[in-house]
């Protein structure tokens, strides 16, 4: 597949250059893969995430007030190396410790864990929370083997807000784990994606088929099935999520409909329409929703549905203002 690029091997480097030129409120040292806010996290814990590139707006689009203090950027779909993670930790630590948020991928876990160990050896307080919101592989997969997917946006938002409010490192870790265990995601797609420099997509489907249980790396999902109508797809995703999450009448929920990069927003809102109807029938009230592209897989045509059970604290944190290049909210809409 064709792409608009220069040398594909420079894609990430050039993206970072463009991003830093476009957003002067961000910083990086030289050609480093660590991007930070130019406002240091004074008097509070710093929040850091990172992972492979190709997921924009994630992760660097969310650096700023109320979300991340730093992001460590890997190559496309590849965890950043230990050294970069360590550099990020050192850069943003102002003596109050560093909270690392990441998704459950061997590469990320290993690189972040090694860097956290090294930072601790240097006397920096570091905690790590690994997101596992994905039910793509089926609910029989052990929770600690699940991927972190677009439900992570809710972790980022809540932890970022709590850090700004002055929560301790231990509290932030607990919050991240709580949000993670209150959150489930399921994704579907019509194709895989083509990495820069590659000519073939990770997979492709025949007309009229869909892949169920995809993540955001163009990986195949659990099964290839006949494409059915949107309402039927949504009913099935919500049903699988709910069998695991067990929302009850009277519960409050947050919903994310995340486009994977090539999905028209029209389709995302048609999906949201159905999610809203199904939850209303269950007596679950949607208190906050995010419909758009939060965590993409290059130009993959697919989307995921995330549901999260809310409590007063997490709802407040989700509605808290934030100001970053690709997510800004002022006070509570409505």
């Amino acid at each position, binding site marked *: 597949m064709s792409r608009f690029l220069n040398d594909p091997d420079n894609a990430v480097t050039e993206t970072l250059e463009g991003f830093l030129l476009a957003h002067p409120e961000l910083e990086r040292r030289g050609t480093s893969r660590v991007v930070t806010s130019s406002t240091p996290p004074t008097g509070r814990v710093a929040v850091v995430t990172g992972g492979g590139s190709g997921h924009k707006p994630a992760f660097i689009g969310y650096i700023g007030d109320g979300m991340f203090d730093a992001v460590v950027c890997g190559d*496309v779909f590849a965890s950043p*190396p*230990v*050294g970069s993670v360590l550099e990020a930790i050192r850069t943003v630590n102002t003596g109050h410790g560093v909270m690392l948020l990441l998704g459950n991928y061997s590469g990320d876990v290993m690189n972040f864990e090694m860097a956290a160990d090294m930072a601790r050896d240097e006397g920096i307080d570091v905690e790590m929370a690994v997101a596992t919101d994905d039910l793509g592989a089926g609910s029989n997969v052990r929770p600690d083997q699940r991927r972190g997917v677009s439900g992570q946006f809710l972790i980022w938002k809540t932890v970022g807000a709590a850090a700004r409010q002055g929560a301790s490192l231990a509290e932030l870790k607990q919050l991240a784990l709580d949000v993670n265990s209150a959150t489930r995601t399921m994704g579907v797609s019509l194709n895989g994606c083509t990495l820069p420099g590659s000519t073939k997509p990770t997979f492709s489907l025949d007309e009229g088929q869909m892949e169920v249980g995809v993540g955001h*790396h163009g990986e195949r999902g659990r099964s290839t099935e006949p494409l059915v109508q949107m309402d039927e797809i949504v009913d099935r995703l919500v049903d699988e999520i709910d069998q695991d999450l067990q929302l009850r009448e009277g519960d409050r929920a947050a919903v994310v409909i995340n486009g994977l990069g090539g999905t028209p927003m029209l389709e995302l809102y048609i999906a949201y329409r159905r999610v809203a109807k199904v939850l209303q029938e269950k007596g679950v009230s949607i208190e906050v929703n995010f419909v758009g592209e939060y965590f993409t897989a290059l130009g993959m045509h697919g989307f995921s549905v995330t549901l999260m059970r809310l409590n007063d604290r997490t709802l407040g944190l989700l509605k808290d203002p934030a100001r970053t290049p690709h997510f800004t909210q002022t006070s509570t809409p409505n």
Partner: protein
Amino acid sequence: MSWDLKEALLHASKNVQSARDQLCDLDAALGDGDHGTSMARSFAAVERELSSTESNEPADLLELVGNTVLNAVGGAMGPLFGSAFLSSSTALRNADPSLSSPERTAAAIAAAANAIQRRGKASVGDKTMVDAIVPAAEAAATAAGQPDATSATVLRAAAEAAAAGTEHTKELIARIGRASRLGERTLGHQDPGATSITLVLESLAASAGAPVGHPVLTLN
């Protein structure tokens, strides 16, 4: 080790870079399609570093490779290959001076296998590079005990065992890492990381001049 390890590592680096597309294809079937890119970029960095280092001391070279891989690209292969090379370097440095050269080679491979298992927490049968490096370490130990053992025969035995282990991954269902989410759909596909391990061991064995018993690694 009497052969030129630097030459051998450079040879391995070149072979890894040439296998980029095939390794990506293997990873596209089981994962996210980037394994070849990560390996190629890491070993391009290895090639650069090796070409500019003065030292020819095996432990130094392995340490250099380990640190380079660890900090080049990241990914899953970074910490795994990085720790493997760093641990084999340490194994050589700490080796009992009374050990023979083939015994040291086997000890280095064993250290690599241990490091990969420690770092990734995968077991044999999980369909990862562990399924290549663990049998390789066992075969290396056996080969090093033979009366006519050389580093070359040890590496050859390791490479052949790694290749067999890699071939065997086709029959396994992934139980860890990215591929594990595909469950039964992973059957029939060869693990990319195991393939890379084999490629590196074969390149080293070939450079060490061991006679090739039979063609071992198929990149698909």
